[in-house]
């Protein structure tokens, strides 16, 4: 057991160090969120009448989406590593496959966590203020979402074989979710053909969870924007984590050896 924990920390450390040592990556990864919030949110705010600040509405959506996507994308790099034989080192070590995946999720989860904190800082620039209670509530939510992002990443790797394939497939799994999950637009009322996919994608619950937490002190706005009560969001996210991780881990371990 100590050995597994040792190994998990080493694997997580690798991803964290690589992220910290590469400031340009950190900055580049903030470009899209800023464009989404300022350009998309800002233009809607100026042109569409809503009973709440539309830029902040977008900001909360982008916060959830960025964390989720960052971690999922980080996990995908496992496939690239595998091809460059970098993780050969991991796979031939006397540790459980699960430990490799857990280490990877913790490492990339940390990256997603920092990314989330930085989006919160961007919020300050567009006029969002946080109370101490806000931070206390946001931190566990961010952690939960990083785990879901990791689990979702595992699920995708278990479907695709090589990195070329996975880089093609990943946007197909992620971009439709932006719109189905209502990152930029309200999705409370939808026609049936959108309602079904919208309620199936994981990002919907991520975004809804953040909005539930963010608008908790303004019930009239919350009522207008959120889809489910907060406990349903949490419950569904936890169930998805368990299902994605179990399936992903089993499928990856099997695929790794049965070539």
């Amino acid at each position: 057991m100590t050995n597994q924990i040792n190994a998990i920390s080493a694997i997580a450390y690798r991803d964290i160090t690589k992220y910290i040592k590469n400031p340009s990556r950190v900055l580049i990864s903030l470009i899209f969120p800023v464009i989404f919030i300022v350009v998309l949110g800002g233009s809607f705010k100026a042109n569409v009448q809503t009973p709440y600040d539309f830029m902040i509405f977008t900001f909360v959506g982008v916060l959830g989406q960025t964390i989720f996507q960052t971690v999922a994308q980080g996990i995908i790099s496992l496939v690239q590593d595998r091809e460059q034989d970098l993780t050969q080192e991991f796979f031939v070590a006397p540790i459980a496959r699960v430990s490799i995946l857990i280490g990877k999720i913790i490492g990339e989860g940390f990256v997603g966590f920092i990314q989330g904190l930085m989006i919160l800082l961007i919020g300050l620039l567009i006029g969002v203020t946080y109370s101490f209670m806000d931070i206390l509530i946001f931190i566990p939510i961010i952690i939960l979402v990083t785990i879901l992002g990791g689990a979702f990443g595992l699920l995708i790797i278990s479907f695709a074989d090589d990195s070329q394939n996975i880089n093609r497939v990943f946007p197909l799994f992620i971009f439709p979710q932006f719109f189905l999950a209502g990152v930029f637009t309200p999705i409370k009322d939808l026609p049936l053909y959108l309602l079904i996919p919208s309620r199936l994608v994981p990002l919907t619950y991520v975004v809804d969870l953040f909005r539930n937490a963010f608008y908790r002190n303004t019930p009239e706005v919350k009522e207008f924007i959120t889809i489910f009560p907060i406990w349903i969001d949490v419950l569904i996210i936890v169930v998805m984590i368990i299902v994605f991780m179990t399936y992903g881990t089993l499928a990856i371990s099997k695929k790794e050896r049965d070539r």
Partner: protein
Amino acid sequence: MNIIQVKNLVKKYKKADKNSVDNISFNVKEGSFFAFLGENGAGKTTTISILTTTLAKTSGDIIINKRNIDKYPAKIRKDIGIIAQKPSLDENLTGEENIRIHSALYGVYSFRPTYSLMSEDYKQKVEELIDLIDMKDFLHKKVKTYSGGMKRKLEIIRSLIHEPKILFLDEPTTGLDPVSRKSIWEYLNNLRKETNLTIFLTTHYLEEAEQADQVAIINHGKIILNDTPEGIKKTLLNDYVILTTKYIDKLKKELQDKKINIIEDLSKENSVALDINKSWTVQKYIKMIDTEISDVSIIKPTLEEAYLKLLS
């Protein structure tokens, strides 16, 4: 004692129509240097991947260090070190960080986020190993800045940190310059002298296999020869003698008259090559020939010549 025993090993990849490894059997003695020789695609890497537990076999029995590979893959992984064909270092981390991660993966030392927080035992071991390959100044530099030869050396010392019993090297010197290759081999040979390490090497450089205790040649998934380098050469090629003379025409005619066969391929403008075997010794040739000879040299064929003959 045989540290590796392979019996009737078969591997057929899912999408392939032929077996990549086709019913091979061989043993490797503890502490010996075993070379696995073959062309690209012959099945070398497939075999090494199966032996190192990263690839599932189709059928066959494998015992490594008295343990069955199907039952104890994790324990076997602890007993072996692997240098893969492509470098498996993280180029964005320093050499020391790569070693530190390795030692945590193998449970040798407890992991700490910085070098200074690591145990004294660890630091001592790392310094000792880095001294061996003369790379002290590079220990805390990013692997990106290393040359090809330095990367290989770092990988080798990294793989030794958990003190494996068998070191698998899959074409370790491919793409390296001759100087780096030489220094890596010097290091490996010293290591063998000092420890009882078993080396399992795949290569297509024949001069590397020449130093081995045992060479197995694999072709299209089958082992076609398994012997000492000397044995392989003897099976495939005889030694030969080259006679040099100023009177080449006269000599050739004399040989023809006495019904002695010339090896045409190896004969040159002023010399002839003659096969040496039990009935045709050098002495016998010299006694028979009257033409004046200016030089006699006995040639022992290299493994390379034997190998090329085998594949042709």
